[in-house]
């Protein structure tokens, strides 16, 4: 192994620093904005020297925005709660629907299995509005318009293909002989599924669930089309908040930070599985 020339090391270092600057700066800047008052945000030239304040977060959490014109009610906590509720429930439902199906696709060859699996996969690539626009009309007729249940069902469009294809891969990686041996020992199909297959695919199921949660949390268009203000998640709520709050930029920044923090934390926790999840199970990290 020969030593890398100094010039090359400097160039590499500079390149990495520039890359970090471009990708990290927006997040850092919004975080800084979120702990400033409007006066310091609006200063020209902008400066990073200011007395940090947490009143933006306080305003969001208490739901009261003190402005010169009076007190403004903000319901951002409601949006956060909606995001949490919608993402958690749709992932739970997706796991209940998707894991048994993934097992069937992995283990039991049956007529039409690949067709169903690929149809589900192709939903991942169809324009969401193609399904959403007719649904707005159907939902009115079915009484599902602006209900959590309707939204959770539509969220399966992103959650289910992801869970199905990642978990299927994990089931396929378990040698069939292990399950066979357990069944020879006199255990039934369900017992084998519950005691052997599920625990062995456990990490994969957890990873698929975490990723599906991130995708559900980050979704924008479903709720934009199908939910009104009281059911909207943070992605849609934040946009409405910008219009409603006028010039309260500090609070908008704080709202963004609160909205992206959960996915960041989950991504850090699940980073080992991110590659696999993002490629729908095709590439291992």
């Amino acid at each position: 192994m020969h030593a890398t020339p100094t010039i090359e090391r400097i160039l590499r270092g500079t390149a990495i620093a520039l890359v970090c600057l471009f990708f990290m700066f927006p997040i850092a800047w919004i975080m800084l904005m979120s702990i400033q008052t409007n006066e310091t945000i609006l200063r020209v030239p902008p400066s990073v020297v200011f007395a940090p304040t947490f009143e933006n977060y306080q305003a969001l959490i208490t739901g009261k925005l003190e402005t010169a014109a009076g007190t403004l009610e903000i319901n951002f906590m409601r949006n956060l709660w909606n995001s949490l509720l919608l993402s958690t429930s749709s992932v739970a439902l997706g796991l209940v629907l998707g894991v048994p199906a993934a097992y069937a696709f992995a283990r039991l060859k049956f007529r039409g299995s690949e067709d169903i699996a690929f149809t589900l996969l192709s939903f991942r690539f169809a324009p969401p509005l193609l399904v959403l626009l007719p649904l707005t009309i159907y939902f009115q007729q079915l009484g599902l318009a602006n209900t959590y249940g309707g939204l959770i069902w539509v969220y399966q469009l992103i959650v289910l293909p992801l869970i199905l294809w990642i978990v299927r891969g994990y089931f396929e990686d378990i040698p069939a002989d292990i399950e066979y041996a357990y069944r020879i020992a006199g255990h039934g199909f369900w017992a084998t599924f519950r005691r052997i297959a599920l625990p062995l695919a456990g990490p994969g199921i957890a990873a698929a669930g975490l990723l599906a949660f991130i995708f559900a949390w980050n979704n924008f268009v479903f709720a934009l089309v199908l939910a009104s203000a009281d059911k909207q998640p943070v992605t849609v709520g934040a946009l409405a908040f910008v219009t409603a709050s006028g010039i309260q930029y500090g609070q908008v920044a704080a709202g963004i930070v609160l909205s992206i923090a959960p996915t960041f934390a989950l991504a850090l926790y699940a980073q080992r599985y991110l590659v696999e999840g993002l490629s729908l199970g095709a590439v291992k990290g």
Partner: protein
Amino acid sequence: MTTTHTQSLPPGPRRHRFRVSRRMLPYLLSLPALLTCIGILIPFLTAVAYSLQRYRLSQPWARQWNWGQNYLNFLSDPAFWNTLKVSVTYALVTVVVELLLGLGIALLLQRRSRLNNFVSIMLLMPLMTAPALAALMWKLMTNPGFGILSYLAGLIGLGDFRWASDPQTAMLTVVIVDVWVYTPFIMILLLAGLRSLPQQPFEAAALDGVPRLFVFWRITLPMLTPFLLTATLFRVIESIQQFDIIYAMTQGGPGDRLTVFQVEAYLNFFQSTNVGRSAALLMILWAITYALSNVFIKNWLRLRERSRGNA
């Protein structure tokens, strides 16, 4: 232990009181997924029907089948050609930039070291940001009043640089946001690809003193091709359908500067309530993505088989 593709379990002994027939079992397990498929296919078929109708929400009495008329109208409709042009431009520019940048970063971070691993994890954060919120972040940074980027543009002599609100630079601005969010996607896929390549060819080349540029073009790139193809196709399919970033940033404006397919269809449906035209637009977008996704899935399956084989 070699795991062959989909091994069937032979029937084992049963002790259950109630028996599910073996032939029915797989269908029972996948029934919910099957129902979801049907549940999604119904609105899809409805959209096909809408696209063949004259249907405006504001004039329900005038609703009638007009068969291909919505599609025929596109031929002489400058707004449609603008949508097609803007969508294709957006998809091509974002994907080319992201591919080059993503490949470059992956090569920079290829060697496993603590710093490189840390940087590659940090770079995932934009990808984990909801695209709509990412657009909002950039909107705050490009605000003409206090945006840091507007200020910096002023410093380098670009005076009144209006980013997304100027028709001249609106496309550039949303492309930057897209590049910010999605370059890490390509980077992380290519990084996994680079690190999974067999080492022998590289060792042999190093031993023979083959120039590094030659190694890159003749060994690295060809071996990386399946990863490059999968990442590129995936991104093209998503990028031509981009909605969140553009809608959150400018709602398709200024004017019709950024009315890509899904934004135009959304505006047609909710603002001009022209359901027929909206559905026809989405059908054309669907045809494009369907063709692309078939190529993608073939590639993706090959890659999937391969990484299963390595497991």
